[in-house]
């Protein structure tokens, strides 16, 4: 069954450290997305990608970088983690084009101390 997986599922990091969150999809979708979910805000888009080698800024990109080395993989990178980046992060994939339904991974809970 096609799926979106994320690793790690839980992560504790220290302020100023580097964090990399990984996402893999077997949907063969062109588009991939990173969101964060915080109480009172719903899900907000951080970065997205139209395909291997492409990354685009979403609505809240500050403090985050993204990397799409292949069709299947999309990473979110926090170069200098801060406590305000404590959140639950979701990755999603979608076919894009005229059929834009998105499918989500299980989420990664990140705590920055």
């Amino acid at each position: 069954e096609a799926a979106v997986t994320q690793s790690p599922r839980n992560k504790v990091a220290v302020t100023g450290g580097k964090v990399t969150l990984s996402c893999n999809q077997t949907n063969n979708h062109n588009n991939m997305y990173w969101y964060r979910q915080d109480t009172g805000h719903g899900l907000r888009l951080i970065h997205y990608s139209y395909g291997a080698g492409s990354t685009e800024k979403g609505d809240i990109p500050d403090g985050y970088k993204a990397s799409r080395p292949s069709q299947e993989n999309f990473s979110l990178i926090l170069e200098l983690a801060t406590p305000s980046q404590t959140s639950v992060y979701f990755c999603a994939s979608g076919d894009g084009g005229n059929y834009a339904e998105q499918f989500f991974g299980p989420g990664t809970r990140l705590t920055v101390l």
Partner: protein
Amino acid sequence: GDQVKQSPSALSLQEGTNSALRCNFSIATTTVQWFLQNPRGSLMNLFYLVPGTKENGRLKSTFNSKESYSTLHIRDAQLEDSGTYFCAAEVGGSNAKLTFGKGTKLSVKS
């Protein structure tokens, strides 16, 4: 203000009853998705809608693009329907992004 407004923010239902959740959009929206986030945190796809109506079991959803709203009807609510329901609007056409509402937290009680 919020571009995707969901109402109500929370709802408690008795098992076996019916209810409707609503999303209003202040942005031009081409398609709408509805998700259920279960108590473990997983986001499950419920509906992907162009303007019109879809039905799946006890759930039915309508997207009216001219009046900028979408509804999700739950019939004969069951305990396993509990969770947070999110609607998300696709904006900008092809390769568009989703803008999420803040969710409706539903509790179904026996």
